[in-house]
């Protein structure tokens, strides 16, 4: 989710090795800090009883900052009273939604509804939507144009799945919103990125805003968006764009900055003006990196499909939700997989466009259909099938009797596992709970808030410098002062346990994938699926097997946050210098020694970056875990959403964001200093 957070240029501190011969100051500091924290955590309750000082474990209610009430009042004023003379603030936001709604309506008519004039029963059909055959052939030919026939086959199979499993109409509703949200996200991200590239002051201002956009859970701002932009698909589109745009901004700024000076110089020499330099020189040169941003926007947009459907986007996300509400696990999985195949098709297509080779221009003397045979054929198919649809229903809609379904297969599989293995699963779960989860929970929730602020500040200052230490302490104070200390500590506990388990599973898998291409292709596909499959789909089976509670939440978080641990580990192992391995072999290392003595130490920075991303993903899953009954910040955000309490939602959302930002800064600094130790920068 926060790819690029770590791209911040920050002078990293040299690793503190301590005085020569006494490298232990660091060790003493960390062990001391931990021991004091542990002692205070264990005896905080006893301290409170002995001194009769309740403030030790609870932030005093009287001193709480009523920020949530202020925010609620401020938004109410914004929505109901702010007036610019001729129009109100709400008129402005409604105008924006009207601008977005127009192209969305056209796209939706084109793909699903058909064009109509008039309303309701008086409506007259003007033109039918594109036939399903036409849409599949357009997708296939795009793949052919972007790359080759293998990609065409992949995309064809993906779209055929949508038709064959009866997901077509919902999938097209989702596709319509993706096709609107992605261009808005890309264009907006690029525009902000260009401004940030030109004005360093603007970039400094933008950075914290982007951090918040990526880390505040979407649920926290859904209600204000609904109020300002109206109910329906447009509000969902706007929430999607807010969530999906930040990586595009970051990547565009970085990509533009990394265009070689010589290229820019050459552009100036041939007499480019400012605008020409940007559009004819900088952007084309940066195109491959920019396409990575486009790809991120597409993936994040698809991640939002479920949440968007909660506020009226409809489509595949809505199918997943309704299927799960009636415990139709098979239906949920089929609709969830439809989101996965759509993500795969769009992802591979956009990647192919990123690296597309320019083909030679054909002789302009040739007639149009000879120069563009595929294009002509596709237009012919589209026109023919769409018109024929008026007479032959099979062209208009995929014939219902050819629809495949996995039916009750999934339900009976889960039932079989449930009936036969529940007791063994329960035994393993109880052990894990007692050995790992509960002790960690007791440790974190026991820490007195005042010491919590000190310890976070000290640790951050030690690793990333005193400025960050002060900032981290201030953020921690904000959480305590909002009366959310307990929830925040539950969040930290759930996240740390999940990250630990995800790393224990993910890093070995990544190491294996990094050394063995065959394992890599299997693990890669598995990871891709896990990351794009909406977590709602597996939440129900997880609850059936592990019951409501922290354990189920942890499993869901681990499944989702596994991907970066695997990917970065594999990447780290793969990018170890061949010569170093060669040198190891020459000096007689066994392959085990090469792994432990050469590859792993050199891959450490990569592993740390993977850890960073794992933490970010774990935090972004928090709100979802609220749905299985955890009592953390995610639950706080969710309660605020269901009660439409704007202030409460935003304050809890900010607390989540602050935890994410502190973790990000600390781990990034660790990665940087380990890179410097190895001389890799």
């Amino acid at each position, binding site marked *: 989710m926060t790819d690029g957070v770590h791209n911040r240029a920050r002078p990293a501190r040299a690793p503190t090795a301590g005085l020569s011969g006494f490298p232990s100051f660091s060790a003493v500091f960390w062990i001391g800090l931990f021991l004091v924290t542990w002692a205070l955590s264990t005896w905080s309750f006893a301290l409170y009883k002995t001194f009769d000082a309740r403030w030790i474990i609870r932030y005093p209610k009287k001193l709480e900052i009523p920020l949530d009430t202020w925010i609620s009042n401020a938004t109410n004023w914004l929505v109901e009273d702010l007036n610019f003379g001729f129009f109100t603030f709400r008129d402005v936001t409604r105008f924006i939604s009207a601008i977005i709604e127009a192209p969305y309506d056209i796209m939706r008519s084109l793909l699903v509804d058909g064009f109509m004039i008039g309303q309701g029963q008086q409506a007259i059909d003007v033109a039918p939507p594109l036939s399903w055959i036409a849409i599949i052939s357009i997708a296939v030919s795009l793949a052919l144009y972007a790359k080759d026939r293998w990609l065409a086959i992949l995309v064809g199979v993906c779209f055929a799945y949508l038709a064959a499993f009866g997901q077509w109409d919902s999938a097209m509703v989702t596709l319509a919103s993706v096709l609107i949200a992605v261009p808005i996200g890309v264009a907006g991200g690029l525009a902000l990125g260009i401004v940030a590239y030109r004005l360093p002051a603007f970039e400094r201002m933008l950075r914290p805003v982007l951090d918040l956009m990526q880390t505040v859970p979407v649920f926290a701002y859904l209600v204000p968006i609904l109020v300002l932009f109206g109910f329906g698909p447009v509000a969902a589109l706007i929430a999607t764009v807010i969530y999906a745009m930040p990586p595009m901004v970051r990547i565009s700024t970085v990509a533009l900055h990394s265009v070689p000076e010589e290229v820019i110089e050459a552009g100036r020499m041939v007499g480019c003006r400012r605008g020409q330099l940007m559009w004819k020189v900088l952007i084309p040169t940066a195109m491959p990196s920019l396409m990575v941003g486009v790809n991120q926007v597409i993936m994040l947009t698809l991640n939002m499909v479920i949440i968007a459907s909660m506020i009226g986007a409809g489509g595949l996300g809505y199918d997943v939700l309704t299927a799960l509400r009636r415990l139709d696990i098979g239906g949920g999985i089929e609709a969830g997989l439809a989101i996965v195949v759509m993500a795969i098709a769009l992802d591979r297509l956009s990647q192919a466009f990123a690296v597309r080779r320019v083909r030679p221009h054909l002789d302009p003397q040739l007639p149009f259909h000879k120069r563009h045979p595929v294009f002509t054929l596709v237009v012919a198919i589209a026109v023919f099938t769409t018109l024929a649809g008026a007479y032959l229903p099979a062209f208009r809609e995929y014939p219902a009797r050819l629809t495949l379904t996995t039916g009750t297969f999934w339900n009976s599989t889960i039932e079989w596992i*449930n*009936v036969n293995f529940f007791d063994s699963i329960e035994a393993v779960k109880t052990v894990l709970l007692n050995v790992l989860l509960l002790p960690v929970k007791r440790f974190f929730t026991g820490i007195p808030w005042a010491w919590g602020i000190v310890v976070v500040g000290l640790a951050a200052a030690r690793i990333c410098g005193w400025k960050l230490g002060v900032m981290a302490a201030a953020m921690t104070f904000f959480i305590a002062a909002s009366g959310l200390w307990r929830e925040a500590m539950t969040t930290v506990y759930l996240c740390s346990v999940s990250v630990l388990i995800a790393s224990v599973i993910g890093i070995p898998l990544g190491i294996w994938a990094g050394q063995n291409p065959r394992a890599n292709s299997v693990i890669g596909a598995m990871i891709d699926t896990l990351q794009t499959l909406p977590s709602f789909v597996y939440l129900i*089976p997880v609850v059936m097997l592990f019951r409501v509670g922290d354990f189920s939440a942890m499993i869901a978080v681990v499944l989702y946050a596994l991907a970066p641990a695997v990917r970065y580990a594999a990447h780290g192992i793969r990018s170890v210098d061949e010569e170093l391995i060669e040198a190891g072999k020459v000096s007689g290392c066994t392959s085990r020694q090469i792994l432990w003595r050469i590859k792993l130490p050199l891959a450490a920075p990569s592993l740390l970056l993977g850890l960073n991303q794992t933490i970010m993903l774990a935090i972004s899953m928090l709100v979802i875990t609220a749905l299985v*009954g955890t009592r953390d910040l995610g639950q706080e955000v969710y309660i605020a959403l269901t009660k*439409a309490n704007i202030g409460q939602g935003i304050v809890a959302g900010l607390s989540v964001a602050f935890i994410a930002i502190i973790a990000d800064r600390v781990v990034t600094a660790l990665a940087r200093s380990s890179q410097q130790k190895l001389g890799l920068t």
Partner: protein
Amino acid sequence: MARKLLAAVAAFSTLAVHGALAEPESTDPIKLTTHDWTGQIVTTTIMGEVLKNAGYNVEYVQADYIAQFAGLKTGDLHVAMEIWETTGREAMDEATATGNVVNMGETGMVAIEEWWYPAYMADVCPGLPDWKALNDCAEEFATPETAPLGRYLGGPVTWGGFDDERVEALGMDFEVVHAGTDAALFAELESAYQRKAPIVLWLYTPHWAPSKYEGSFVKFPPYSAECYNDPSVGINPDAAYDCGKPTGPIWKVAWKGVEEKWPGAAKAIKAFKVSNADMGEMVAKVDLQGMSVDDVVAEWMAANKDSWSSWAQ
């Protein structure tokens, strides 16, 4: 001459008025909200079909159960067909207090919410459905996390319900575990039911679960407002909530402008009535037999033409 013209104008205008009576007052679509549970979609679709029959244009807008009130207040949304006394009262009162949302009366359905156990537990725990009998075999319901207390799976925190207080007030040996969503609630029930494992949890009707799973609601001392408000009332003289949960009607609400813009539609919405039994049957047909909502509604409309055709008159 002038008189003749006047008469003609008068005749024409009365004609026009009569014409308007047959036609809807406005062709703007009436926006009905739909949520993510089948019963509510069925209710809304029936209402929508009735309004369509009366010539109105109808649009279904998917919206969150509580968040929709923001839209109902401003007129972005027009009608919400199911506001449960038990879960939506607070939000509804807040909205009607602003004067922009009006209560359109009861839907005829009554929400029941209570502790529920599957039928096979009656063998393990004789004396059920009495709550004292349940309490006597609390240990049967224990899990490793809650032992020696029994585990009771409550609804999401946002549903309220005062189960923690109830357990305390009645001195029950149970620990309340809150599910995050009702999907999680029913997932656990399904899992336990497949294994015939002990479970006691929060269930409600109208819903498909009581028709799919065999079982009963636990009988607590009957609810009264005093029991909730006054500690001295009830079994425990020192605590409130020492009784069962209230049952309550499911309400309909609408934006205040509906009555001015579509008076005929407003009348039909107010007249809407469906029984618990009918609704339970329709929901089961959709969720358990896999029929589509439209088919189920069409079937009901055909069978109950007399009742719904009178609403719109």
